[in-house]
């Protein structure tokens, strides 16, 4: 079929909208899909410009089937967001080839909307807002161009219409955003995207694990304290407790449901805070040493005093918790547990065992032994480094006596080994230490680079006690941050990224991101409830919310309607005309379209003979002003009009006498004079 070129304008906009909708997926989609889309767009456009022929059906059909099979082959199915959006892109590309009327163009625009949605399902960043607004604007401009049937207008007119549509929608968007009842999903199973690794802690700890993390500036979580933040050296965020040692790797086994709430005793103040954590696709949560209580669905405490969730954290999660800064944990430890926490693999790291025995012999008490071990770390030439040498089979031996270069996991691992070797129950806690205060100081950012590992040992009468051997080697790691610790050891030169200006920039950026996370991404059923409570609407159910939404939405729409009506008001008349209008209003006798003032005057005088003189004077003065009058004449006009007696009812004969009913050339035409 030959195209007639009449779609040219709307087709250009439609293609533009499609390209904008597809653009964010350019890098994530297989190259052939992007290629197909561009080629189809180019082909269709040139067909329109040349007024050529569309590709015939017998050719389109096999191409379509081929593309469908190619998507299947690329993704191994059509379930999930990525294959779904790939299929949408292919459909849009092929639909372009057969677009011959408005309806086809509408279909492509619908696909554009779904493509944008799929972009958001894949990733939501701060720039997504800008993209949303821009993409929506272009789509709406395209929509206006497809809908328009009158004469084609210049491209910027459509752009302005798109902009107007977007701007008018913004207040309603805000209203819907805040008030539309959010229902906790999901309704149907979300296909999990397996294999998408997230940086973060893992449930095992081998040498080198945390040092790789320390390179990442990704945010692990943000925390907002309800009172003053505790000093930095107390900010130990525990996530995983590892206690199963095979000679090289520490592992956490599946935690049991905790019954430890009764074994945690407060020895001082507690602190409340809210954590907003980035998705980890794991089940553990972060909590300040030691979590005593918490608020949030499906969250429980393990027997290791860590918080967990029954489901993996696949989306950003906010929860509240209360922690004890001074505590006594598990004052009683079962003999069985004691045996477990002192277990070491047999015939492993003999030199380390010998060292432990040597130190133990020299100490009179458990406390002294611990002190001696820590001072061993401090006094021997241990070196804090991100790139320690590789360790062999007896890793602890080599580290303690030969290389002496390591990162926190080396120290924690060696320390736990030395404790166990002396019969002291010990385990490793993996989590984060420290955090950066945000620019406004109202929350704290904990990044992956704050990942840390430390120890807990069990002491008679004290329970589990936190010991951080890294602090013995590199106290600045705890007191300041990783960078300063590394600089101290000459590991890292203070670079451009450490300049205060850059740090500020980074913090500003994080502040914006945090607000975006809190108010846009994290705005769910709970945030909504809290926000409404803050507005003074306590615990609304969805019906109240729907009512409120309806009321405010209606009010907003009424305001928009008024605004539109105001925009459509007649242009301001000049002063003389307004007095002429006033005359007509006073007489309740409007002039008819095309009725000249003197004709009106004749008609009005005939209808209101008593006011004939005033009417005549008013109209004559009006004409005088109209045709080059001066201020004095204008004053006379005003005086004359004011003398007209106001009529309260419209005259029955407001319309001019109609032409005789005999059919003439003009059968229903207003009278013209």
């Amino acid at each position: 079929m030959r195209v007639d070129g009449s779609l040219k304008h709307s087709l250009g906009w439609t293609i533009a909208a499609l390209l904008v909708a597809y653009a964010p997926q350019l890098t994530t989609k297989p190259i052939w899909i992007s290629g197909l889309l561009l080629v189809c767009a180019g082909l269709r456009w040139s067909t329109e410009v040349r007024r050529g022929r569309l590709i015939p059906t017998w050719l389109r059909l096999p191409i379509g089937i081929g593309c469908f099979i190619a998507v299947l082959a690329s993704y191994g199915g059509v379930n999930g967001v990525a294959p779904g959006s790939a299929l949408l892109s292919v459909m849009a590309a092929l639909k372009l080839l057969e677009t011959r009327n408005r309806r086809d163009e509408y279909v492509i625009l619908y696909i554009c909307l779904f493509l944008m949605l799929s972009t958001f399902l894949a990733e939501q960043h701060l720039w997504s807002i800008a993209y949303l607004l821009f993409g929506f604007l272009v789509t709406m401009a395209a929509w206006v161009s497809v809908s328009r049937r009158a004469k084609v207008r210049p491209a910027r007119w459509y752009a302005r219409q798109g902009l107007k549509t977007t701007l008018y929608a913004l207040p309603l968007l805000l209203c819907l955003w805040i008030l539309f009842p959010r229902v906790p999903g999901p309704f149907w199973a979300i296909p999990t995207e397996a294999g998408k690794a997230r940086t973060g802690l893992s449930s095992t700890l081998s040498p080198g694990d945390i040092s790789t993390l320390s390179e990442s500036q990704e945010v692990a979580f943000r925390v907002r304290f309800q009172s003053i933040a505790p000093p930095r050296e107390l900010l130990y965020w525990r996530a995983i407790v590892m206690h199963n040692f095979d000679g090289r790797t520490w592992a956490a086994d599946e935690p049991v449901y905790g019954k430890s709430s009764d074994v945690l005793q407060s020895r001082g103040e507690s602190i409340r805070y809210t954590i907003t954590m980035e998705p980890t696709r794991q089940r553990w949560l972060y909590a300040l040493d030691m979590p005593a209580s918490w608020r949030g669905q499906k969250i429980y405490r393990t027997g290791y005093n860590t918080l967990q969730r029954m489901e993996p954290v696949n989306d950003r999660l906010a929860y509240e918790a209360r922690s004890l800064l001074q505590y006594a944990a598990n004052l009683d430890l079962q003999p069985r547990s004691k045996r477990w926490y002192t277990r070491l693999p047999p015939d492993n790291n003999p030199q380390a065992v010998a060292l432990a025995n040597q130190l133990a012999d020299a100490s009179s008490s458990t406390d002294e032994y611990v002190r001696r071990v820590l001072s061993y770390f401090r006094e021997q030439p241990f070196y804090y480094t991100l790139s320690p040498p590789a360790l062999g089979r007896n890793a602890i031996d080599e580290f303690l006596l030969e290389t002496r270069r390591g990162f926190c996991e080396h120290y924690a691992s060696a320390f736990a080994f030395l404790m166990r070797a002396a019969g002291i129950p010990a385990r490793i806690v993996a989590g984060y230490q420290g955090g950066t205060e945000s620019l406004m100081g109202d929350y704290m950012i904990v990044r992956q680079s704050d990942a840390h590992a430390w120890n807990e040992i069990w002491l008679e009468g004290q329970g589990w006690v936190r010991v951080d051997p890294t602090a013995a080697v590199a106290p600045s790691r705890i007191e300041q941050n990783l960078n300063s610790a590394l600089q101290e050891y000459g590991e890292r030169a203070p670079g451009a990224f450490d300049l205060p200006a850059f740090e500020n920039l980074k913090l500003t950026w994080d502040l914006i991101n945090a607000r975006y996370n809190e108010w846009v991404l994290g705005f769910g059923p709970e945030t909504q409830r809290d926000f409404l409570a803050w507005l003074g609407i306590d615990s609304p159910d969805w019906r109240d919310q729907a009512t409120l939404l309806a009321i405010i939405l209606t009010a907003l729409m009424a305001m928009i309607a008024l605004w539109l009506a105001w925009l459509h008001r007649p242009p301001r008349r000049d002063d003389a005309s307004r007095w002429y209008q006033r005359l007509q209003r006073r007489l309740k006798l409007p002039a008819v379209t095309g009725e000249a003032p003197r004709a009106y005057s004749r008609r009005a005088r005939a209808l209101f003979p008593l006011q004939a003189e005033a009417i005549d004077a008013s109209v004559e003065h009006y004409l005088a002003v109209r045709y080059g009058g001066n201020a004095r004449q204008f004053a006379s006009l005003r005086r004359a009009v004011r003398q007209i007696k106001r009529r309260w009812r419209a005259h029955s004969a407001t319309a001019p006498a109609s032409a005789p009913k005999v059919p003439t050339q003009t059968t229903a035409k207003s009278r013209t004079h």
Partner: protein
Amino acid sequence: MSSTAWLSRRLSHWVRRRQGVDSLPLTLSTKRLYILPTRVGMTFGLVAFAMLLGSMNYNNSMGFALTFLLTAAGLVAMHRCHQNLSGLILSQLYARRAFAGEPITVELTLNNQARTPRFDLRARVAEYDGGYHDVPPAGSFVYRIRIPTQQRGRLQIERIGLATEFPLGLLQTWAWLYVDAECLVWPKPAEIAPARPALADDGAGQRGSGGDEDFAGLRDYQDGDSPRLIAWKTYARTHELQSRQYDGQNTSEVWLDFASLSHLPAEEALSVMARWILDAEKRGEQYGLRLPDATQQPANGLRHRNQCLDALACYGNPEPRRAS
């Protein structure tokens, strides 16, 4: 299809009862405007709902934002669509008469008093489309709508439809205006007409068109003089309209009598008379018309011609036909 047609007819009747018959000029106030979603609009609603479900399922904030933006755009489009038609003035309706078989052109003037343009308005008379046009701010637009005709007589223009789907085509705002207006359809002039019967006072009629060539002089232009007779050269020189006078003009009177065609069926007879009128007018004769129910005194000129043709159209007082 038939059920939609039935529904739209019912709706039209209801609107007519509700609004009554209007006279011009006519302002499209809110109570005359109707608004309903179009098919595109309904699909749009479904798409927005599907996107809402998707956003809820994935608990995707930006998805919600897109869905809400879409919904909001739809809601605002409703107001903009309504406002686009509200307050317009239908100021004039003018129908140019035509011979049966030729289309009648209805001129429909829309007045926009607002300081913003009105976009993409469609005007229709019955189902005859005037197309989509914009009306400029504080200005007007004249729609020219052609209505085909078949038979001579009266053509009733009953319903005028004004509609817009601006801005997004999701909703249609429309107004139906019932104006009691009629237009005449002249009989189609016969291709081959029998010769006029020679009447007693019909002398000049037989002289043929040769008389036109004998230029006699100029006289002041009078209403009804054919534009072809105007001396344009003189006008260009003096700015005074003058008509050329020919010998043989105004010299005799011709009577065109319906009774002389009694052997023909009435409609055919009217066609023949239409042809006679056109011929006589062309020759510049003074011709009169005799119909059983009307008589036109002999005269000449466009106005006279039209009056004669009108009389033919109204012969027998035919029932007005609806333009549909």
